């Protein structure tokens, strides 16, 4: 048996919602390791998300495919954070969008069934999942404000202030798509910031 690398997950959970050791151990032992090549679709539109992932290595992208071949990048995930189509996972209904890996990835994953069993057995784990969902919801609504009220330049600057490292790990065309601006505008903004 390869030992499962759960330390990053333990650290992450402890920073959000500390658990007692017994519960923490039961929680951590329910995850299984998973690796995957770059440019692999983990969840397709129409499919119901079976897993919650915790990212150990690599970058992933969720994107929606609209009419006229428009593609909207919804979210990126990278370590240390959770991944998977969260809304489809939590509601167990079909996903409206795709989740793909941009690079080779290493993950921990847990099935819906298993997490549900844990939540039933340990109410504190359920509260922790609620806390994690609340944080995610807060992030989504903040982004909603940015997309609706901010100019392209403001959106760009907000991203640079919040997560400057994404410039190094995510292809710029996807960052542009995430901000809802076209790639040429994105390079212009990038140039103006550097000067």
């Amino acid at each position, binding site marked *: 048996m390869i030992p499962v690398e759960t330390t990053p997950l333990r650290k992450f959970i402890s920073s959000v919602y500390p658990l007692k050791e017994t519960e923490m151990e039961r929680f951590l032992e329910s995850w299984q390791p998973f690796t995957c090549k770059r440019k*692999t679709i983990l969840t397709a539109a*129409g499919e119901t998300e079976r897993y919650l992932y915790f990212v150990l290595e690599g970058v992933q992208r969720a994107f929606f495919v609209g*009419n006229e071949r428009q593609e909207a990048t919804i979210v990126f995930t990278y370590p240390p954070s959770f991944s998977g189509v969260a809304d489809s996972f939590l509601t167990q209904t079909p996903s409206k969008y795709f989740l793909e890996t941009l690079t080779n990835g290493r993950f921990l994953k847990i099935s819906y069934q298993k997490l549900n069993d844990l939540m039933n057995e340990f109410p504190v784990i359920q509260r922790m999942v609620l806390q994690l969902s609340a944080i995610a919801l807060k992030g989504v609504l903040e982004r909603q404000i940015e997309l609706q009220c901010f100019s392209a330049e403001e959106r760009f600057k907000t991203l640079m202030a919040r997560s400057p490292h994404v410039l190094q790990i995510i292809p710029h065309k996807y960052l542009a798509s995430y901000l809802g601006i076209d790639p040429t505008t994105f390079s212009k903004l990038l140039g103006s910031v550097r000067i």
Partner: protein
Amino acid sequence: MLALYKITKMPRYICIDMLDSLQSDVRQLISEANYLKSIDPAVLLQEPAPGKWSIIQVLEHLNSYGRYYLLAMERSMDKGTKSVEYFKPGWVGDYFTRLMKPGENGQVSNKMKSPKDHRPSKYPDAFPVLHTFLEQQQYLLDLLELAKSKNIGAIRTPISISRWIKLKLGDTFRFFVAHEQRHFVQINNALVTIRDTKDILPAAHPAV
């Protein structure tokens, strides 16, 4: 056991990895079919050259195989067999899968002719055909998931042209997906011809 494997030289797969990899191939096909939804139906119904199948005809051809194989595979899994760690392809199944699968360069060099009863009608309605194709792929993803708890080397599925020839379920999945991938190369080529542009469909990840 290992010695025997070396003599026969047949590749051996870890079942879960193989089924995972087939699932990601199917998801790739779903994403490509999703792009087709946004294309003008007139383009989807146009023959790329006189006598050549339109994109919708290609999909209808795939649907006709789906109607047979998806049900046949589901039925073959009715019996309770336990999963095992490894899958070794049968030589017939492996041969046909290799024959079907597009080459490393993502192209098809060996043309084939379809059996008569799988030739699609000339003017099928575009959207229902695309819709059925996508539905069948979701069904296929579920069957691949179900197969993770079955012995895909012991279960056998009768092929469409003869009830008497049966392939290992693992090979039937491989063959079925390879056949779809082959025809998606054809679909991409048809789009390139009709629209006179390059790289219409989102690039597939390199073949495993």
